[in-house]
């Protein structure tokens, strides 16, 4: 293979949209809004798993929450015919993520699992990713956070405690994914089995509204859920192609 062919081949590869090689997994979460009760078990589960700090009332008053997953509430109609709609909002791990392109130091990028990864110790805190994120799911450490002793005994050693001036967000519990992959390797399996691993929020959801898996596997539960006619993505029109798929709530007229 002459140098020129080689170069041409590489060039073609590097010019290929997305990535020059296929991702190992395409982790996806589906959220069935018809099941979601807005109970927020997912919020606490995430806070416990990912060492999300207790920011305190003053910070919250300034609007500096840190919880990686939140429940958004939208009222419809007026009394007495009024409805409250819940929608869990977390990092959508977009395949065409606006936040990734803007980071000047590549502190956020797509990793081999197709996740939108945040490299805390590379982040210099320009906060532009948060500006570019249409889902408002990136949270910034405006100051140092403390855990009153002995609350720090609970901190999860698999997850970093973030420093001030660093952007952070949902990772789809990447530490669990990593462990699952290790186990798969130990068992001599090439891939992680469907349902073998769940992020904290999915695991805790009492109404089983959240499902997690690899959409590359057509047999996986998420693949089936995505085939549901109710499936849609939030802010689809922005073409960020999120990895979080919502299932429409069935309206009150339905029986």
């Amino acid at each position, binding site marked *: 293979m002459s140098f020129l062919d080689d170069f041409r081949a590489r*060039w073609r590869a*590097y010019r290929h949209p997305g*990535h020059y090689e296929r991702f190992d997994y395409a982790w996806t979460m589906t959220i069935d809004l018809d099941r979601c009760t807005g109970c927020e078990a997912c919020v606490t589960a995430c806070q416990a798993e990912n060492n999300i700090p207790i920011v305190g009332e003053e910070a919250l008053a300034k609007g500096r929450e840190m919880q990686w997953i939140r429940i958004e509430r939208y009222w419809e109609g007026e009394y007495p015919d009024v409805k409250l709609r819940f929608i869990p909002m977390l990092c959508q791990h*977009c395949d065409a993520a606006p936040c990734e*392109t803007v980071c000047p130091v590549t502190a956020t*990028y797509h990793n081999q699992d197709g996740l939108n990864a945040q490299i805390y110790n590379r982040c210099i805190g320009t906060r532009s990713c948060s500006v570019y994120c249409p889902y408002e799911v990136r949270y910034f450490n405006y100051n140092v956070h403390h855990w009153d002793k002995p609350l720090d005994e609970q901190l999860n050693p698999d997850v970093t405690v973030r420093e001030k001036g660093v952007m952070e967000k949902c990772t789809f519990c990447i530490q669990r994914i990593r462990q699952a992959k290790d186990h798969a390797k130990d068992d001599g399996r090439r891939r992680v089995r469907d349902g073998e691993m769940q992020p904290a929020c999915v695991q805790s959801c009492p109404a089983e509204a959240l499902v997690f898996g690899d959409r590359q596997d057509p047999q996986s539960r998420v693949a089936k859920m995505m085939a549901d006619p109710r499936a849609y993505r939030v802010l689809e029109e922005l073409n960020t192609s999120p990895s979080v798929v919502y299932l429409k709530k069935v309206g009150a007229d339905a029986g």
Partner: protein
Amino acid sequence: MAIDAIGLFRGPEAALEAAGRLRAEGFAALELISPIPLEGVEHRLGTKQSVIKRFTFFGALFGGLLGFALAAGTAVLYPHPVGGRPIIPIPPYLVIAYEMTILGGILATVVGFLISARLPVIRERAYVSEASVDRFVVTVACAEAGEAQRATAILRAAGAEIVEAALGRAGPA
């Protein structure tokens, strides 16, 4: 060492006059030192060709290529898939190339200027400090005293005030 004949003029015209005559007399090493850039120096002292534009052009060219290479090279060495874009997306890297083009052009121009204007000075040259105020000075570098006398004569004839002490005097102090 070289002996210089130096004449001071109160106005540009006289100075140019004298310079022209000296050139006609065959004095090659002429210099016209003035507080302001003078028009019409060329056709009195011959047209000048500067290499600066080549510096500028190639500098800019090199800068542009370097810019694109820098961006693309980085992406290839650290292939981080970002925002679903290719590893080497053309449009953003053109911006980088554009900026580097200009940077290269600017730096090369400066180098070109310094070289072609023979700055910064490495050896002392004939100079009269009044030239930075309102005097127009003609200096002639002569091989030996005889020539210097002739040049001086011509200058004096042109109405110049001769700087005797300037013969062989140190350059900018």
